[in-house]
């Protein structure tokens, strides 16, 4: 897949876009918890990115801009789902059963890693999202706040809750712990 040489692709730098796809997929995987839904979300995000290409300021961080779009696309899709099923909510469903391991279990060779992933699945999507952006993507807190359209203070409190929850879950697994195969 290459751009025809010399074509003045309007708006977005395509090589940067392609380079951003793996990270978009990872973020989507953390949001949706499921590979095919995640890729659908990435595709929707890229399509939305092209629609909004005039909003992107050349030279700014394309990845962060795409993360913002993805977050919004996801929240909108969730809102549609919520309208259909009143009991679905982005943060009122910490044990979302639809959330699976973001990676195939056989790729994980350490039991504690597998456990950690399962604990991740029990965090609220809000907390997972902040944890991924801070710990894995290593974005600045201000960038995270901008992507999620929330104050930096909220980023910090979500991050703090995410880490504490993860710690408690790991420390005291409780009766709800699924059997680790």
């Amino acid at each position, binding site marked *: *897949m290459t751009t025809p040489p010399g074509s003045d692709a309007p708006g*977005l730098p395509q090589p940067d876009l392609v380079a951003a796809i793996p990270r978009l997929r990872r973020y989507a995987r953390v949001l949706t918890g499921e590979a095919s839904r995640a*890729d659908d979300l990435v595709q929707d995000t890229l399509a939305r990115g092209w629609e909004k290409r005039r909003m992107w300021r050349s030279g700014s961080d394309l990845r962060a801009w795409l993360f913002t779009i993805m977050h919004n696309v996801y929240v909108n899709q969730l809102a549609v789902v919520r309208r259909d099923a009143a009991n679905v909510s982005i943060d009122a469903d910490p044990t979302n059963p639809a959330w699976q391991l973001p990676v195939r279990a056989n790729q994980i060779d350490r039991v504690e890693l597998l456990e*950690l992933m399962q604990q991740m699945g029990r965090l609220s999507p809000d907390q997972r999202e902040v944890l991924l952006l801070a710990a894995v993507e290593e974005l600045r807190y201000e960038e995270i706040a901008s992507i999620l359209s929330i104050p930096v203070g909220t980023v910090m409190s979500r991050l703090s809750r995410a880490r504490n929850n993860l710690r408690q879950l790991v420390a005291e697994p409780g009766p709800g712990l699924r059997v680790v195969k």
Partner: protein
Amino acid sequence: MMPTPISEADIHAYVDGRLSAAKAAGVDDALASDPALAARVAEMRAQNAALRDAFDLVLDEPIPDHLLAAAVPPALRDARHRRTLPLAIGFAATLLIGIFVGWLVRDALIERSGTPTTFARQAAFAHALYATDVNRPVEIWANEEKRLVNWLTKRLGFQVHAPDLTSVGYLLVGGRLVAGNEKPTALFMYENADKERLSLQVRKQRGADETAFRYAHENGIGVFYWVDEACSYALAASVDRSQLLKIAHVVYGQLAAADASPK
């Protein structure tokens, strides 16, 4: 030197490498004198490392073609393939969904009019109706087996066989013709020493693919049904599933042997 108070936010920023050098030095000092805090920071760092380990695996996965295609500016995408193929797939999918929904609705409508639609249900109903009839469960009794088989063969339009189930303790009682959805159905009734009855029902199945044994349960009657050689078979009885499956295997084996032999 007065240690500056360390906030919760500072701890996180420290772990994530987002704290200014001056503040980070303050946290370093605090860690040296506070083992509990040091342990917590170490744990948070371990968490970060573990999360990175796990989620980095996603980055190594090959990017699906449709996502690469989505990164191409819409104006440059090859209209012949990228536009028409999804469109064609969309049409085909819509058509299939339409057919499927229509089929479901059709069944639902027929069901509502009181007719059991699936062969398994019909088989269970027919069995319930005739097996409980002590005096007249069949139209032609087993003493006229040859006449029975010839008659059913003629009415159904293909060679039918009444399998011999003595090996599993059942003897042929006789048989009858039963109305089906579109085609008539042949029913063979069997009975064991305890006077428990089972029925084998056969009918032509238009355009059906061969299937494995399937099991259904209707009002206390178990039914194994399958499709073979363009015929549907259903074995119905009020016995447990494993027992019925055993009998189904015997029936299947005999019918396969009968089909293989010259008619």
